């Protein structure tokens, strides 16, 4: 048992109690492998997830630039392509199947290995336990397992690149893997739809299992391991976001897993879950019978729509957290934010049909899905209003994380609002599968979520690595990125209105797309510039890890528990002194308080809880409790 308080070497943790110490389930590892590779420390695992996502996001981004180049300068010979992919781009000109394999791999990498892993597995793993005052996740070994299973899933996806045939770098059926193309593509001689497609499904299935293990851990950790005084309504909004996301993942991924198993059987065992009879390859009738391609779409989008919120909710949480911190103002409408998040999560399970308005689904069902879809805009709007409310009357400090958080709000509005168009079954008749959809979801679940991650990285980097990221480089990164993403994705809406279909390997075949050539060029140039700027971030990230300015425990003068521990935190987060929480997460600019922020651990003088008499054996010791000067 902790006999005496350990303090107060400039740190803010000064309290401990019996229960917390009982949690200490593992000592610090000593060997390199246990410490950095097969670690069960949630902080190391969080960083592992972040690095995995960082790898994937740059691969995915480079793929997107290659796609843009092919669309903009069709037929141009790129010597580098000829060298790298002699058969995928013979003579340096991309084949259409190579383009489609880029489409598929870009989507798969980004959706699964970036948007699902970094915000939840990365930041959530690192900060959820610290923010609720736990010494680790509820099941540290399971946590390690979920990362390594994710790693195996990514390895299988990478393997798919090499078995798909020399002309492509993966399957060519898109990240949605619609049958019958995904089920019988190889029998129709579609490139990339053989062994590569099998490995793609296996990769996704393994990823589902990893996500389920992670979600289970998050939920139990949050429910069972909160520190003394950390009531649900005192949790940072980030924790609410990670919790809601975990619930969504827990309920959505099993459905994708089931669908994946059935699709794999259709491909390899000759079953007919998704493949109907009477299909022909032009000579012979294929040996399937009675399946339904629409069934896959229902199962896939039952997962796929919650997946959108799995990607964006942690970004919303981080944005609320960071906006409040740098606005020096409590989150406006904390409860409304929590309820809105839950409403989004719940409604997210009842709107999947809006991906299928033109699929041949019953039109009455389509109508119901349309109305439900528009109602999910309401909690999203509530969140936006509350972010603006948080900024109103504030004292904003324009740090790099704050810039990205404000950028998140702007992009979330810009991307989300066009959901009002796409959610209407009528308007989807023309907008479906055009660049309008591309602009919409890239802004809202792609770029906005990435801005949430950037904000989180700049914000939490000092905590994770004990050094600040370079602010000047950070700001140079922000401005062109913010302008760039708008320049890329807003014109895509216009292209969609004119009618440009997505997943086209070239726009050379259609007269009605001619007028869009200048816009296509504009978007591509914007994309190349924006992509180049991202290497600045990469440089800043790794440079700062070793050369950045040393960070104090609480460089941003924030209030939540991760800022009461040293940077980086010790092995079990609180060195045995798990704090007690006395107040809500965002007590900024409290009138009468000595500083413009009050830590969650600052004791509550009027409460019985700190009256020494209320506790048997309370020992008062030390001074300068919060590390503030009084």
């Amino acid at each position, binding site marked *: 048992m902790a006999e005496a308080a350990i303090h107060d070497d400039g740190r803010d943790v000064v309290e401990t109690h019996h229960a917390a110490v009982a949690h200490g389930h593992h000592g610090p590892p000593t060997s390199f492998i246990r410490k950095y590779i097969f670690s069960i420390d949630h902080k190391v695992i969080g960083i592992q997830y972040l690095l995995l996502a960082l790898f994937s996001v740059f691969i995915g981004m480079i793929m997107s630039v290659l796609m843009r180049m092919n669309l903009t300068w069709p037929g141009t010979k790129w010597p580098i392509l000829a060298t790298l992919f002699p058969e995928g781009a013979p003579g340096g000109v991309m084949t259409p199947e190579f383009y489609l394999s880029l489409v598929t791999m870009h989507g798969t990498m980004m959706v699964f290995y970036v948007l699902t892993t970094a915000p939840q597995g990365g930041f959530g793993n690192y900060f959820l336990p610290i923010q609720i005052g736990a010494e680790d996740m509820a099941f540290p070994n399971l946590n390690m397992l979920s990362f390594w299973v994710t790693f195996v899933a990514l390895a299988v996806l990478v393997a798919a690149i090499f078995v798909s045939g020399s002309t492509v770098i993966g399957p060519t059926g898109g990240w949605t893997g619609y049958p019958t193309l995904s089920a019988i593509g190889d029998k129709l001689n579609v490139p990339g739809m053989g062994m590569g497609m099998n490995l793609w499904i296996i990769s996704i299935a393994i990823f589902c299992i990893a996500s389920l293990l992670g979600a289970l851990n998050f939920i139990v950790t949050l429910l069972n391991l909160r520190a003394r005084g950390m009531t649900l309504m005192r949790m940072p909004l980030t924790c609410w976001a990670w919790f809601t996301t975990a619930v969504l993942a827990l309920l959505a991924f099993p459905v994708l897993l089931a669908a994946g198993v*059935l699709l794999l059987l259709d491909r390899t065992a000759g079953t007919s879950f998704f493949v109907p009879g009477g299909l022909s390859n032009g000579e012979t009738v294929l040996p399937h019978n009675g399946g339904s391609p629409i069934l896959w779409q229902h199962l896939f989008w039952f997962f796929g729509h919650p997946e959108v919120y799995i990607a964006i909710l942690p970004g919303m949480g981080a944005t609320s957290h960071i906006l409040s911190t740098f606005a020096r103002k409590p989150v406006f409408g904390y409860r409304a934010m929590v309820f809105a998040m839950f409403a989004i999560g719940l409604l997210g399970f009842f709107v999947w049909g809006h991906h299928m308005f033109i699929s041949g689904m019953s039109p009455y069902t389509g109508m119901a899905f349309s109305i439900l879809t528009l109602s999910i805009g309401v909690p999203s709007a509530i969140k936006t209003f509350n972010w603006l409310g948080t900024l109103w009357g504030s004292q904003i400090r324009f740090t790099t994380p704050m810039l990205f958080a404000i950028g998140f709000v702007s992009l979330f509005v810009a991307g989300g609002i066009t959901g009002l168009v796409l959610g209407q079954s009528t308007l989807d008749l023309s907008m479906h599968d055009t660049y309008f959809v591309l602009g919409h979801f890239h802004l809202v679940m792609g770029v906005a979520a990435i801005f949430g991650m950037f904000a989180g990285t700049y914000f939490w980097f000092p905590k994770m690595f004990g050094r600040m990221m370079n602010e000047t480089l950070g700001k140079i990164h922000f401005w062109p990125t913010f302008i760039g993403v708008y320049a890329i994705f807003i014109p895509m809406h216009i292209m969609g209105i004119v009618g440009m279909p997505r997943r086209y390997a070239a726009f050379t075949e259609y007269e009605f797309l001619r007028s869009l050539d200048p816009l296509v060029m504009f978007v591509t140039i914007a994309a190349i510039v924006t992509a180049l700027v991202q290497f600045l971030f990469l440089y800043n990230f790794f440079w700062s890890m070793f050369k950045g300015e040393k960070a104090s425990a609480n460089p941003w003068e924030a209030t939540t528990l991760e800022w009461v521990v040293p940077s980086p935190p010790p092995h079990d987060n609180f060195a045995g002194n798990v704090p007690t929480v006395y107040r*809500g*997460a965002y007590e900024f600019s409290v009138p009468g308080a000595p500083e413009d922020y009050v830590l969650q651990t600052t004791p509550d003088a009027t409460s019985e809880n700190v009256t020494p008499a209320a506790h048997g054996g309370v020992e*008062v010791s030390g001074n300068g409790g919060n590390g503030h000067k009084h």
Partner: protein
Amino acid sequence: MAVTVTNTSATTGTRTDKGTPGIAERWRGGGSGSRPSGGGGGSNGRSWRDDDARREALMRDRYRIGMWVALASIVMMFTALTSAYIVRAGISTDWRPIAAPPFIWVSTALIVASSLVIEAARRAARRGAADGLRALLFVALLLGLGFVGSQIQAWRQLVEQGIYVATNPHSSFFYVLTGLHGLHVLGGILGLNYLLFRLTRANGDRAAAVAKYQTLTDTVALYWHFMDGLWIYLFLLLFLWR
């Protein structure tokens, strides 16, 4: 137990230095509980000691809660497969239900029996009966293995009739559902093994070991009952709804 608290007297001292004592009083009052849609309540009025006891119980209970959460995701997977089953049965012209292979009945008897035995084991654990617990768990393990063996026999009976996974949609679903259920049962068998291993290795104070692994025993029993219930559900789905 020693609880250490910040030097409250120092901070209390500063209160009087600040402008109006009334405002100072308010900020020390613990945040925003009384304010509309505020960022969480102040003191909850309950003493810390109750809170600590509750939290320790939660800590011990995390395996059981975790199991409930895991079961929710398993439910989702089989719900998805059920909806696929119903849809596929509804749209098809080629739906020819297979007859239940006789070994299915053996499987059902075995898994129901194992569930009863597990329940007896769980109660033995509650009583602290260490030997009884181990014996019963061992029997349950054998019954579980028997179930898996019997399921494999059922598959072989179908194969002998020439019914394979791709023979018709109903047989496809039969193999998929029994296969996935069987995988989950194998997971349960691993869990039983682990529990038995733990109990056997604690050869010192057996009663203490039983108490120590009480939650684990409850968790394994919960999963096992669920597998039993899931099997009965699948059995009814496959051979009543067709």
